[in-house]
């Protein structure tokens, strides 16, 4: 669908026939919100044993963050609560201000990362209910992601099938860190269910930290670990391609969120070069790897790369393909990308339409 004028300039409150699409918005629960949606048995379990992630600490991630709640300091709602917990403030700071037609919710609450897969299933179901009732129902511009217990594919498929017909959900969410590379056969039922239901998968950085962030061991600082997440995206790309996921599921659509994108062209060349010599190891890969990157993968733009020469960013877009790029803000996090300011080079109107709206419309399921 074409917008006839600059999509960024539509006034706030315009219908969803125009307006930009933000592929990464982080909701946060008010205290006790998620527990309301948990059955008693799991409420008790979580109270006693916690979320039981693959972590060193009982209640927080291994790498302490740099800002409280990872968030912009101005995103704490005036009425109280954590950033991303107040729908009215999300409207004010994000949806209305930037004319957002749809914002895709990406909860990062560790529900899908529990080592106890039954707990993970219970938490995911509760978090899906919570998104739908407390965000999408009152604010239909916000659309939910189907969280699934990724290491229990049967339970994951059940949850996908349960939510697939619900207009409030627009994709399936997975974490970029999984207990095995995500192309491995054990995860294929999830892909089958996604494809069968016509739902894309948002692969967001984070997930299960079941091994050291680096093949070389454990970095010490957030500044190192942050880049490790980028590597997890690259690893997952390579895995899906080389394991033949996109041959088995040619209609599968994957959006890579918050892992950056400047690495994508070079990864494509690298995969192509070494596949050419060793393709007999992976006969399930029928085309050069980079071709799958052009048919089945999309990249969310935040945190936008900032080349030393801004025009190099245009070159990266060209190399990846303008049809592959989808805008994301990462609201309310500290490295939020303002759509007006994030891209330090001039885009044409057509290019803006692609990045801020049309590409996302071809991936997500907005009903």
């Amino acid at each position, binding site marked *: 669908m074409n917008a006839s004028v600059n999509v960024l300039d539509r006034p706030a409150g315009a219908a969803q026939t125009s307006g930009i699409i933000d592929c990464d918005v982080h909701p946060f629960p008010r205290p006790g919100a998620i527990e309301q949606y948990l059955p008693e048995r799991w409420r008790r379990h979580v*109270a*006693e*044993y*916690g979320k*039981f992630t*693959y*972590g*060193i*600490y*009982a*209640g*927080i991630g*291994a*790498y*302490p*963050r*740099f*800002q*409280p*709640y990872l968030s912009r300091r101005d995103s704490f709602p005036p009425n109280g609560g954590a950033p991303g917990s107040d729908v009215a403030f999300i409207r004010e700071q994000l949806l209305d201000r930037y004319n957002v037609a749809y914002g895709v919710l990406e909860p990062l609450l560790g529900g899908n990362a529990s*080592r*106890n*897969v039954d707990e993970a299933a219970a938490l995911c179901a509760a978090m899906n209910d919570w998104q739908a009732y407390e965000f999408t129902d009152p604010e239909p511009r916000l659309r939910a992601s189907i969280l699934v217990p990724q290491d229990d594919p049967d339970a994951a498929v059940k949850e996908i099938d349960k939510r697939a017909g619900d207009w409030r959900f627009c994709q399936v969410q997975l974490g970029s860190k999984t*207990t095995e590379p995500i192309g491995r056969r054990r995860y294929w039922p999830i892909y089958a269910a996604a494809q069968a239901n016509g739902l894309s998968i948002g692969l967001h950085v984070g997930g299960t930290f*079941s091994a*050291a962030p680096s093949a070389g*061991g*454990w*970095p*010490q*600082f957030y500044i190192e*670990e942050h880049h490790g997440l980028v590597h997890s995206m690259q690893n997952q790309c390579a895995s899906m391609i080389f394991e033949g996921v996109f041959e088995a599921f040619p209609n599968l659509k994957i959006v890579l969120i918050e892992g950056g994108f400047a690495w994508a062209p070079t990864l494509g060349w690298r995969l192509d070069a070494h596949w050419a010599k060793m393709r007999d190891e992976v006969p399930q890969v029928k085309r050069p790897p980079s071709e799958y990157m052009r048919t089945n993968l999309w990249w969310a733009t935040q945190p936008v790369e900032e080349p030393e020469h801004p025009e190099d960013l245009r070159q990266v877009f060209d190399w990846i393909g303008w049809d592959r790029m989808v805008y994301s803000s990462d609201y309310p996090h500290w490295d939020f990308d303002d759509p007006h300011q994030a891209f330090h080079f001039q885009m044409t109107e057509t290019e803006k339409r692609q990045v801020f709206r049309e590409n996302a419309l071809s991936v997500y399921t907005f009903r």
Partner: protein
Amino acid sequence: MPALPEGAIDCDIHPGVPEIKQLLRYMEPFWQESFVARGLDGFDMMSYPPNAPITCRPDWRRKGQRPGSSLTDLQKDALDTFGIGLAICNPLTGGQIAVSETMGAAICSAVNDWIVEHWLNQDARLRASIVVPAQAPHLAVEEIERRAADKRFVQILMPAACEMMLGRSYYWPIYEAAVKHDLPVGLHAGSMYRYAPTSTGWPSHYVQDYVANSNIFEDQLLSLVSNGIFVKYPNLRVVLIESGVSWLPGFLWRAIKTWRGVRAEVPWVKQSPAETIRENVRLTVQPIDAPPDPNTIERLMEMIDSDRMLLFASDYPHWQFEGDKVLPDGLSPALRQRIRVDNPLETYPRLKETVQ
């Protein structure tokens, strides 16, 4: 020299480490600002989720309070109830497992300051382990040197699973400092979780993680012995804290048998591992994983074949026993005396220097 207090010597109690907020005052400005500006807290170890049953016996839990955080409760529930004359505080803190060497060191040092002010200075019966950042042996040694003059610090404390096997040369500086100051090295159940908690990967349940702790102790003993740590540091004492105990005989038999078969690989290990372990290693008795049947306990003690190895401990406030049944039935009176008093005194030389 003044006489020691009457009663048993409890070699493992856990004052509840407070939130970072209360520890800030002991830290340098850089860390104070870091923790506040970054909004960081909640460093409870995965090894002891705060609400897990084992972390606090139900009748010792106080609503709204961190387990073990009240001195008066400790005095009433444990010291007085179990007839304890001296008790060694082993704080369990996220500083011991942090991925950052320097952040870990900052928290550990703050905890050591805190234990002096709020525990050692408040009750003359209390002693403590020096909590160290084993992530960085040079920083661990700095902390040991900082505390060594205070004789109420009687041990160096590390989690049982760190970043490398503890026999590695990386850790020599810690053993050198330990020997220099006549401080045993205490390894406490728990892990830095740099690797899967079991040799078969990541279990689904905390209870599985917990029981796998005994494997870690066995691995570390083999590492220390095989690397010749006790050859290099013959006066080093290592204490295994909260290990479960009953694994020991079966482990020793196998250690002896395998060493006999493959000892040529480790020629510096000149005596049977069992001999070395009996000489240099001690174990706290809480828990002893065994049925409450005196005959079984008796047989177990016979198999361990050393009356010097076991150290009395309540493990307060962890949930290991009911009522005041700290020790199982089936121990001879002579063995009970050794466990309750004599072995702790031999293991922790500093205990004999009572502080007024």
